Each structure stands twice: as C-alpha cells, then as structure tokens.
C-alpha cells in the first residue's frame, strides 16, 4: 500500500517538477520599477506650435521609404477624414506618423496633433510579446525584430496609443509596422529623427528625455496662461519617450486621459505572481487530496490495481 502511494506521489511530483522547469522566468519582476534608461533620448512636442503642414509626415515617408500616399502631403482634406463613424486618421503600415486636427471648445483656432509611437519607458508591446520581438534600446527607441515575429498581434492589443499596424495583405511575410524613432538611420548615430528635423515650426525638440522634461516644465511655468499644467507622457503608462504640452485640455486633442500612471505590465503582475504559486503548491495539494480521498479505497481502476501490485520495486 505504501509503495503505491509513494510511487503515485512521486509521479505527481515529477509532473509538477517538469511544469516548474517550464515555468517562465519572470523578467517582469526584475523590471518592477524600470523608469527608462538614464540617457535615453526623447522628443518634446509642443502642440501650440503645430500648424498642421504635414511636413513631418512627408519626411517620415521619405526616410522610412514608405509607399506614396493616396493623397499628396500638401492635401489638407485628410484632416476632415472620418473612419468607422467617429475616428480620425491613425497610424498605418504605410504611415508611421500622421497629424490630425482637433476643433476646440473654447477657441476658434483648431489644435493639431502629431501621432507616432511614443516610445514608452516600459512598453506594453514589448512586455506582451511572447517572442521578445521588441527592444527598448538604451538610446530610447522601441524597435522591432520582424524575423522572430509570429504574427499574433498581441502588441496591437496591448499598445495603449493604438500605434502598431500590421501588413495584413502580405502572404508570406506579414509584419508589424510602426515608428522606430529612425533608429537604424539616425538615432543610433545620435541624430534626431527625420520628422523632428523637417519641422518648420520647431514643434518638436529632440534631446535627452530627462533634460527635455525640465524644459517642458519650464515652458509651462513661464507661460502659465498659455499651457495646461500637465506634461502628457511624463507619467502616463510609466512615462513615454515622446511627450506633449498643450494649450487645450488633452482630451480635446484626442488624447486618452484615463490611461493608468503605471506601466501596462503592472496590471498583469498580479497574475504573473500566481504562476509560481500554482506550479509549486498544486502538485502537493492535489496529490494530498488524492491520498485523503482514496484512503482505504482502491487506487485507480480495477484493472490498474493488479499492475500496481506487480510494480513493487
């Protein structure tokens, strides 16, 4: 009798042990309070300066060798485009950055807003990717390795800014397309991305994120009447490499102002913490239940029992 129970206990423990070895090591724990690389670069976007000329869109298109758009970049009718009933334009696999126009409540002048990847300090796309296709580089860019991408599109689910797009129409090599901060061609060499350099209004300031944050707050402090007292992207989803200051409330410029202040991965950590607990406790717990429930009864099927007897080592 004791042999049977011990053998079964060992079998269950072995199964549990195997499961533990397969348990993912939780990189997320180590990265618990990651706030970005100290010398990571960023861009400060001052929405009050943008006139909606779309020069940045054209520069991005050229730099990233994207296909020619349906409407030329000096066609401003795109600002009136409405998709899916109530949606303004968004980034696509053919446009990594776009500018939208927003009509404000308290002003006749509209506000323009440039949209591209915000290069989060702790990106949701990166932490949701099961093949680790994304990398946050020390320079501050969130880049993507198309050679390992399986195409599950979890990053598109996870991105709080609706940025990554997918080349659905590719048969053999569909991949994610998004702004990469001109990493390969510019950022790696310390140069600002194409959109920043092309802007005639100096809407965007390129520099170290921590220096730019000081500048942003200084601008707000010097012109308290002009700016809303909030730097969008300083705290949102754990801080973003690109951040914004604005004359109008951010929700009026289409920003999601209900985003958590903590990185998206923080929502998932409760669950990730459960994983090792289940892996270690369940085998003993359920083998224990088995021993308690079947004490004095036959273990296993009738036909099985005879084999158990013969099995004694």
């Amino acid at each position: 009798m004791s042999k049977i129970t011990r053998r079964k206990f060992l079998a269950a423990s072995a199964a549990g042990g195997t499961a533990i070895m397969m348990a993912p090591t939780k990189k997320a724990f180590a990265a618990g309070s990651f706030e970005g690389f100290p010398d990571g670069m960023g861009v400060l976007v001052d929405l009050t300066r943008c006139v909606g000329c779309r020069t940045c869109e054209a520069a991005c298109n050229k730099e990233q060798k994207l296909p020619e758009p349906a409407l030329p970049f000096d066609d401003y009718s795109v600002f009136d485009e409405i998709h899916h009933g109530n949606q303004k334009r968004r980034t696509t696999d053919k446009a990594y950055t776009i500018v939208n126009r927003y009509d404000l409540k308290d002003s006749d002048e509209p506000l323009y807003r440039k949209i591209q990847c915000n290069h989060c300090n702790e990106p949701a796309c990166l932490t949701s990717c099961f093949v680790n296709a994304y990398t946050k580089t020390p320079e501050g860019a969130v880049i993507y390795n198309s050679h390992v991408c399986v195409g599950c599109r979890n990053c598109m689910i996870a991105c709080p800014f609706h940025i990554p797009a997918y080349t659905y129409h590719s048969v053999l090599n569909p991949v994610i397309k998004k702004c990469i901060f001109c990493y390969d061609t510019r950022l790696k060499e310390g140069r600002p991305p194409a959109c920043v350099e092309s802007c005639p209004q100096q809407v965007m300031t390129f520099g170290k994120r921590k220096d730019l944050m000081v500048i942003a707050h200084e601008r707000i402090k010097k012109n308290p009447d002009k700016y809303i007292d909030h730097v969008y992207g300083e705290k949102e989803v754990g801080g973003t490499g690109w951040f914004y200051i604005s004359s109008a409330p951010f929700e009026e410029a289409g920003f999601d102002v209900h985003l958590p202040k903590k990185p998206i991965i923080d929502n998932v950590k409760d669950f990730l913490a459960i994983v090792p607990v289940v892996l270690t406790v369940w085998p003993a717990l359920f083998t224990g239940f088995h021993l308690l429930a079947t004490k004095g009864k036959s273990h296993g099927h009738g036909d099985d029992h005879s084999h158990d007897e013969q099995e004694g080592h």
Partner: protein
Amino acid sequence: MKKLETFGIKPHDASLKADGEKWSIMEKLLLGLTLDQYIGQAIRNKLNWFFAIIFAIGIPVIIYRFIFSLGAVTHASYDYPWGLFLGFGLFCMVPLSASGFMLGTTVEVFGRHDFEPIERLALLNGLLGYFFAVVYLLVDLGQPWRLSYPMVYSFGPAAVLFLVGWHVATYLSVQVAEVSTAFFEWIGFQRGYDFIRKGTIGLTVAGIILSTLHQGALGALFLYAPGKVHPLWYSAPFQWILFFISSIPAGLCMVICVSTIVIHTMKWRCDKRFIDNLDWITIALAKGSAMGLITYLIMKFIAIAHDNEWAYFFTGWGAWWWFEILGFVILPLVILSYGIHNKLVGLCRIGAFLTVLGILLNRLNTALITFNWQLYQEIPHYLEFVIAITIFAIYVATYRFILARLPILYKFRSQAEE
C-alpha cells in the same frame, strides 16, 4: 448508423469477434461494414450532406486565406487585431474544453470511479477542443509556420501569451496521452495502455496545474488592454480567476451538451453502462456547474465592487452586462438548481446549454464586443464567419468519427472481462 443492426452487425466493442476471430484494422475503421455498405450509409446520412455543403464552401475559403493573406478574409483592422478566429476559436473553445481536467480530477484524484462512464468523453472533449483552438490559431497567425518560435527560438517570458503558448502545447500533449489509452485499447496495444495508465495520476495533476494557469491566462491576456475592454468586463486583480472559475461550469456543461447530443444521435455506440448512468451523471455534473456558476456570479460582483464600477450599471453597456448575467448566468443557475432539486434531467440539459451560450457571450464580449468600446464597433468580415463555421464543422465531424470508433462511449470488453 442506427441501421447497423439491419446489416446484422454488432458494433466493434471487443478485441475479438463473437466467433473468436480478431478484428482487422479495416473492419474496425468501417465499423464492421463492407466498404459498399459503409459508403451507402454515409451517403444516406443527412448530416454528412450538411457537412459536405459547409466544406465545399469553407475549405476553398481557408485555402484562399493562405494564398491571398489574412487581409483577404478579414477587415485587416488595426484596432481589432483579434477577430473571430481568436475571439471565438481560442477564447471560447478553450473554456468549453475544461472538461478533461475536471473529470480527470474527479475520477483519478478524488477516486470517484462511479464517474468513469463519462470520463473518457470529457477527456476527448478537452483534447479536441484544444486541438481545434490551435487550428483556429494557425489560421489567425500572420506567420503560422513560426508557431514553435516561442518554444525553441526566441523567448518572451514576461508575456502572458508565452505562458498560454507553453501551457496549451504541454497540456495538449498531456491530453493526447490521456486519450491514447482509448486508442491503445482500440488497436489492441496493451503495453502502451499499461504504460500510460501507470502515469495517470501524474498526468491528471499536471492537467490541473496547466489548466488553472492557462484558463486564467486567457483572461490575463486582456489585462494588457486596460481602457480598451469595457470596465464591467475588465478587472486587473480578478480577470484570471473569473476566466478560470467560469471555465469550470463551461467544461462541465459542454460535456452535458455533448452527451445529450450523443445519446440522441449515436445511441447505437453507447453501451448499457453509459446509458444507465447518464441520467444521474448529468445531474451530478449539473451540481458541479451550479456551484461553479454561483461562485463565478459572486466573483463578478466582487470584481465590480473592488473597482467601484457600479455607475456603469446605468449605461447602455450596463444593460448589456445585465443581459449577459441575468440571461446566461442567473437564469441557467435557477434552471439547473430546479432541475437538480427535482431530478429533472431534461431541465439540467437546458440549463447546461444556456451556460455554454453564456460562456460564448462572455468571451466574445471581452474579446470583441466590448473591446474598443470607446472607439467603434466592428462586425467581423463575412469570410471570418465562413472560416470559423467550417473549422467548427471539421471539429464536429472529427468528434463524431472518433466517438463512432474508439471506446469512449462504451467500455472495451477485453478489458471488462479480465
């Protein structure tokens, strides 16, 4: 197939025929009929015609998807990257297949061998559900030939999907092992049967661990999208447990539904043991489902209370939430309880059917319907429906093919007689 007797044939249910001869593989596959007889009965079967029509339309569409890309059969949406293939195929099929580990636990861990008549049906239901969830996944992935990458090539261990991938793959192997005992009996490979039976407890406990985690992980996947999923269907601390707990009634009720269909359409294949025991087993499974449902219902309200989301009750989405909860959690709970109390098997079956629908609605609500509630609604491309229905039809056809042959609904006699 009811006419099997008209051919004067008893279905294959033992290693030896009545006259002491061995069954050949061909005879086993053709259920003891000659090829002409088999084809004749297959053509007379109306369900086969129904499947033929679905496959004639659907299989070319699946081929079309692989030749002309995912963009050709979906809206290629950037805002709804997951459509019906995952929303239905993965998020619904997996909870409905939780039956394997539930019944495995009941019989093997808790030693309730009186549930044995239904155990194999529950295990098979689990195996096929997971297998076809993976089929749906393969259709949905941009580069399905890279499916093994998270296992062997590039690891993203902080991702919930990494856990789902590993666990579904491992659990699928565990379920193959569990169901293989039936297959070994059928082909007459006693040593294989003995080998697997020795590890039953280990396999079952591994099944509990893996199921707890990946059923929950499917819920945790949506934790990456706070603000995208409507708050009434989103709860950072409780999402995983809501998905896990609801998978318990889901799996049990799926077994009730399948056994109901089987007893009405494939009675020739069920042995006396299965037929005689099904009524009390149905009620017993209904009891388990009812306990699961009440726990799930309470957790639902705890999740709402924890995040203080009561205000959403008075919105349109709140009404939709109440529709789901009243119609597909509370109503089946009442029906099941009444059915259990008065021992009304038919009522339990209706309750189980409603519960299964409720799980479908809940998963679709989370993955598609309330997803991007602040943006816009998107109805999946009609070809997505065609492909989803086709794969489901292949699932049902495979299910039926196996049930007609392997000792799932009947006990293999060579074993019973020993």
